[in-house]
């Protein structure tokens, strides 16, 4: 699924790297607020959905080669966090949906959790 489609489904704002949303694909997804739970399951081209907005969320995505993070409940991180993501080439989205809802609508649209190592 293209990130541009994720944006549409989540009715999300794109916080950085807007020009890459139609050229970036995600093929799996993971919703979590504990970063070690994210780190436990490697997925390829995964989308990370989370309610956390601190810099370690971006670092976690970087270590995992995650190309896109969607922040739930309308949360928006500080400028420095957005800048860090931009530097690392990680697209940041912000959706008003809660974590469970956001995961649900994407799952329904055909983005499943698979791709585990």
């Amino acid at each position, binding site marked *: 699924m293209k990130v541009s489609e994720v944006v549409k489904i989540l009715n999300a704002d794109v916080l950085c790297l807007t020009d890459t949303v139609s050229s970036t694909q995600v093929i799996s997804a993971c919703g979590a*607020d*504990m*970063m*070690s*739970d994210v*780190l*436990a399951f*490697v997925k390829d081209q995964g989308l990370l959905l*989370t309610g*956390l907005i*601190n*810099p*370690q*969320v971006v*670092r*976690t995505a*970087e*270590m*995992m*080669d995650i190309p896109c993070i969607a922040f739930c409940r309308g949360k928006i991180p500080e400028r420095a966090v957005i800048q860090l993501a931009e530097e690392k080439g990680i697209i940041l989205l912000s959706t008003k949906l809660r974590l469970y809802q956001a995961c649900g609508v994407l799952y329904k649209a055909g983005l499943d959790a698979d791709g585990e*190592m």
Partner: protein
Amino acid sequence: MSESLKLSYTVDGGDFVSAGKASEGVKRTLKSIGIDPAVIRRIAIAMYEGEINMVIHASGGTAEIEILEDKITIVLQDKGPGIEDIEKAMQEGFTTATAAIRELGFGAGMGLPNMKRYSDELKVESTVGVGTTVYLSFNV
């Protein structure tokens, strides 16, 4: 004679914002010398968990990385409080992290299990009141 490349980092304790910088540097270096991306990811994740541990459980420490022809080793050393029961600390879900740390997304008790999962060898040596040394090795 085999050549080796050595990297060394100081991990700042108490600086949660920049935690992960050493792992990021290692990731970048491994990429630049053409290591398999899947192997790099395993190394980056394991080291990142170790680096986070030094920040949240000890007061920072050092990371020494050695890149050999057939393996990469990482030694994470700190002078923190040490681990009382290493076997218990290795169990999934065991944590002594505070609520404040859990609110930041860490303290799920999955760090050491993740390090074991992603490395080919993990050794933890620790003395209470003296510090902890974590040794990770990856075959490449």
